[in-house]
């Protein structure tokens, strides 16, 4: 049986890892990327998301990316400011398993077709940042700064039709608050697409993962919960296993 995935997010501002908070004030340091990624890799996570929010990554820092990908024996998805096939190509070469694209899809959605044709749709994840305004889900880009006129549901299905292999659905309203995911948003998303849906934004305890699971999430991405609480991915898994959620139990090498 396919397992749901526990995915810690690393938000990188070019200098340090930071904690997200409704996409604002992303200044609070959350540690060094190398130390963090080694800890995650040793702690039973199912996958790692690394997002560069510095917007200085027009050229990919090969040594930096390699220093991280060399430490992991689980899949790693890399995103943040990626707008070109050549950047994706470099990142795959430096060890990324998936590329996460976001802002570019508001300018050029053909890149989804191009990228999924070239690298396979399984390697192309589209992340959509959403904010609820007057009971409507509206899409935002450029780190949540610009509102798009595109309709959320149309955009979602269009991305999948064009070849996105996975959708990360991120609630800006819930981001960093640790009060739980936007479960309505997860429910709508998973009912509209037939690719895996990764819940993001708002997890603060293990029950939030369970709620997202019940609403159709295939994976739970989270950052703050691991940075600033006693919660760990391994304990999250124990909790979910007890609730009979399909979870990967790590094999202990002798």
């Amino acid at each position, binding site marked *: 049986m*396919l397992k749901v*995935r526990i995915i810690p997010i690393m938000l990188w501002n070019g200098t340090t890892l930071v904690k997200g908070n409704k996409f604002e004030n992303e200044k609070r340091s959350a540690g060094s990327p190398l130390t963090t990624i080694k800890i995650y890799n040793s702690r039973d996570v199912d996958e790692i998301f690394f997002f560069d929010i510095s917007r200085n990554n027009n050229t990919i820092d090969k040594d930096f990316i390699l220093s991280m990908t060399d430490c992991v024996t*689980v899949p790693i998805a890399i995103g943040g400011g990626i707008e070109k096939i050549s950047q994706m190509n470099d990142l795959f070469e430096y*060890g990324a398993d998936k590329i996460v694209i976001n802002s570019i899809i508001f300018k050029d959605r053909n890149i989804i077709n191009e990228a999924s044709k070239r*690298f*396979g749709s*399984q390697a192309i994840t589209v992340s959509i940042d959403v904010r609820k305004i007057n009971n409507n889900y509206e899409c935002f880009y450029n780190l949540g700064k610009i509102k798009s006129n595109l309709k959320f549901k149309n955009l979602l299905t269009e991305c999948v039709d064009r070849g996105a292999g996975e959708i990360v659905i991120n609630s800006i309203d819930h981001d960093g608050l640790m009060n739980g995911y936007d479960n309505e948003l997860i429910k709508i998303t998973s009912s509209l697409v*037939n690719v895996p849906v990764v819940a993001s934004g708002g997890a603060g305890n293990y029950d939030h993962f369970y709620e997202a699971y019940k609403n159709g999430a295939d994976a739970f991405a989270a950052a703050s919960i691991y940075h600033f609480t006693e919660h760990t991915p391994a304990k999250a898994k124990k909790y979910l296993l007890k609730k009979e959620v399909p979870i990967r139990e*790590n094999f202990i*090498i002798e």
Partner: protein
Amino acid sequence: MTTKVAIINYGIGNIRSLYNSLKKLNVEVEIILNPELIFKFNKVFLPGVGSYKDAIQLIKKIGWEKSIKDFSSNKNNKLFGICVGMQILSTYGYEHGKSDGLDIIKGDVEHMYKQGCDLKLPHIGWNSIKILNKNLITENLPNDSDFYFVNSYSFKIVNSDQLIATTKYGIEFPSIINKDNVFGTQFHPEKSSNAGMQILKNFINA
């Protein structure tokens, strides 16, 4: 003496993570670009991501087809195909149209929807295996161990005794296959944490 293994680089896929995983097992690893070099080794990995068609076209274009076949026909050698690297061991593949595979293990690679799968594809993530036949590659691994998969196509194997383990996702499909000295996993051992390391270790120690 350290074991020497090679990874075939035919211009596709993420070889580095496999390289790193093998390094952790204290083996000497070489990435080889020239089909002639394969004969310097007796344990070789054939990795692969992307589409069947792209992979097999590159294999043929660069002249790997004959060297891989010659290599595997010597029973003292061992070959390990990973993901698309396993799929192209088959007779035919149907991704982006029909293409001839390496025809080392009899079978076709067909889209999982065409085989009756009705779940979301691609099949991405951690899934368990059911071990059907005892094999050196699964030694010390508990049944139901989870591995990391990324696939929409799966191998329809002709000889069921070459089926070592299967995985269920809408359909039950081969996740580990073996014919004599040729092994294949549909999952990525190099991305499968400790369980994956155990598989790689088993192959190296074989």
